[in-house]
């Protein structure tokens, strides 16, 4: 099961998603809708707050993100994650 991670977002039922997939795609597959636009890391629309866990980017994204934020469109989970749902 090491290829899967648990992603918790607020008080929603946790989802299990493959590590190899972007977090945004995993959320969408489980019908959790968050904002997105460019899907390649430069617009910043999909930023969410990372409460626990670690993620990795294939290449460093252009959009501005604060210390505790991640871009879901281009990041992949390395560990189990706890996220805070943004304004949606």
């Amino acid at each position, binding site marked *: 099961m090491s290829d899967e991670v648990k992603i918790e977002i607020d008080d929603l039922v946790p989802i299990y998603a493959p590590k190899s997939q972007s977090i945004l795609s995993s959320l969408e597959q489980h019908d959790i*809708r968050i*904002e*997105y*636009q*460019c*899907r*390649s890391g*430069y*617009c*910043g*629309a999909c*930023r969410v707050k990372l409460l626990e866990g670690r993620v990795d980017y294939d*290449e460093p994204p*252009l*959009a*501005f993100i*604060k210390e505790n934020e991640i871009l879901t469109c281009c990041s992949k989970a390395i560990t189990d994650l706890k996220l805070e749902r*943004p*304004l*949606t």
Partner: protein
Amino acid sequence: MQYTIFNRKPVNSLKEPMFFGETVNVARYDQQKYPIFEQLIEKQLSFFWRPEEVDLSKDRKDFQDLAEHEKHIFLSNLKYQTLLDSIQGRSPNIAFLPVCSLPELETWIETWAFSETIHSRSYTHIIRNIKSDPSDVFDDIVRNEEILKRADSVSKYYDSFIEYMNLFNLLGLGVHDINGKKTEITMFELKKRLYLCLVSVNVLEAIRFYVSFACSFAFAERALMEGNAKVIKLIARDEALHLTGTQHMMNLMASGQDDEEMARVAEECKQQAEEIFVEAAEQEKQWAEYLFKDGSMIGLNKDILCQYVEYITNIRMQAVGLNSPFEARSNPLPWMNAWLVSDNVQVAPQESEISSYLVGQVDSEVSADDFDDFDL
């Protein structure tokens, strides 16, 4: 005059702040204080497109078949977009370049403004296609009161900063006698006007443009004016990048890592910044009222557009660390995202517009451990 176009002093731009340090002399990019601006330039260049690439022949027929109130919505929206890009095509250069101190930031500002001029050219392309006399549309931009109101609110922070900055570049800091009036020029006030100007630019790119995009895409949702929507899609892709650029500048300022005084300015202006956002949101709602004064269209009306204004204002304010003023709600125009995804902006793979193509070219570094997980 203290401004010089080529600063003779040897300057280490790695130690300069973004603005109000030594002016840039050599345009060199081998060393960068903030590589993010160089990356934004690369990305913007990879996005290059020309309006003529988009075929608008079906739009002409679509437009003729629109109801009168829909023509009003379409044209007014286009006029507003033309106004916004007329301003953005020139003002970042005029306002920010004379006080910029980093070569990579200077070039980002020029690249940014240049791409806005492509947007302006594309509005001419669109209008020329649907109207036999484009002058009707263009001339109305400086006659129509509703548009003029918009122009006023969009340009006033630019004008206020540019006036003060010109005095500074001409006379320097201190108290000066200007036209018989004593005027004090201080660094704090300069930075304050610059910061507020950036906030209003952020509002323009992050809220005002998106409201207009919503109208353009609402037509295309009904399979009308699709060529126009394709152009707007390309514009939206550019604007998302510009927005990122402005957010980086604002956040660098607020963090204090670039210039401590600028961080104090940002802190002091927090409330004013929030007011600029809220004021713009209210203006956009008034604009929605004008757009739909003669009737709504399928899929979009005044109320939905106003809800979208509030929704997007909340999100944008949060992104630059301000408090969101409106009641939290979900996106009332969920179909917008599908139009804004730039993944499906269609380009032929042999054109080097696909940014991953270019990124691949630039980054040719291979390290020994790249092959670690490779088995024969």
